[in-house]
């Protein structure tokens, strides 16, 4: 299956891109996606390392790593929010 991944704020700058299309086997979870991204090494491994605070939204709803992804989803990765 194929879906969009968005990188926001500090993550976009650190990873050097704002969005991309990603392909993963059907029924992959958010955790699978994060593993696949970390496997790219370099800043991907560093920014998405287990100790880093990364928030995940799927189709604009906050979710957690166990969530299952579906074809066409919009997945967003971003740091903790700092608005207001």
């Amino acid at each position, binding site marked *: 299956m194929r879906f969009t991944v968005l990188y926001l704020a500090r993550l976009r700058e650190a990873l050097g891109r704002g969005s991309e299309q990603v392909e993963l086997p059907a029924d992959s979870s958010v955790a699978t996606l994060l593993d696949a991204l970390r496997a790219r090494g370099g800043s991907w491994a560093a920014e998405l390392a287990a100790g880093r605070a990364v928030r995940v939204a799927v189709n604009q709803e906050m979710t957690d790593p166990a969530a299952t992804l579906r074809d066409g989803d919009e997945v967003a990765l971003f740091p903790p*929010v700092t*608005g207001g």
Partner: protein
Amino acid sequence: MPVRVQTEDFDAGREIAALRAGDARVGAVASFIGIVRDVNDGDRVSDLFLEHYPGMTERELEKICAEARTRWDVYETLVVHRVGAMRPTDQIVLVAVTGTHRGEAFAACEFIMDYLKTRAPFWKREDTPQGSRWVEARTTDDEAAARWVDPQEPPSR
């Protein structure tokens, strides 16, 4: 259920007047304005850039406001949040709540701000003499939001 994300500044007095216009039940309006400070974490700040996640931002703000209207006996809620480039003394955010009595309006207004701070996808980048940096999330904001989780538990001050 007005929620707006915009680059333009806002006129708090006019926004509040519009929020309660024509509703003679309203006896209380609590409001909050967040403003860019010239010092943050000890460094002088000359410019601020606010990024957000269009679409999700509005959804989250509307969810927070709907939750506030469920928890407290209030009528209308308003959130106006700016994004883009700002400078010290610029207004960032306005939250206003109308109700019959002040206690409920104050609580709902403070709840919306606390939840906005930890749930709405906005990110601040500051320009300081040491360079540009993304603002780190504050644990005090998490604590402020956490005190509303159990409605039986009064917030500590």
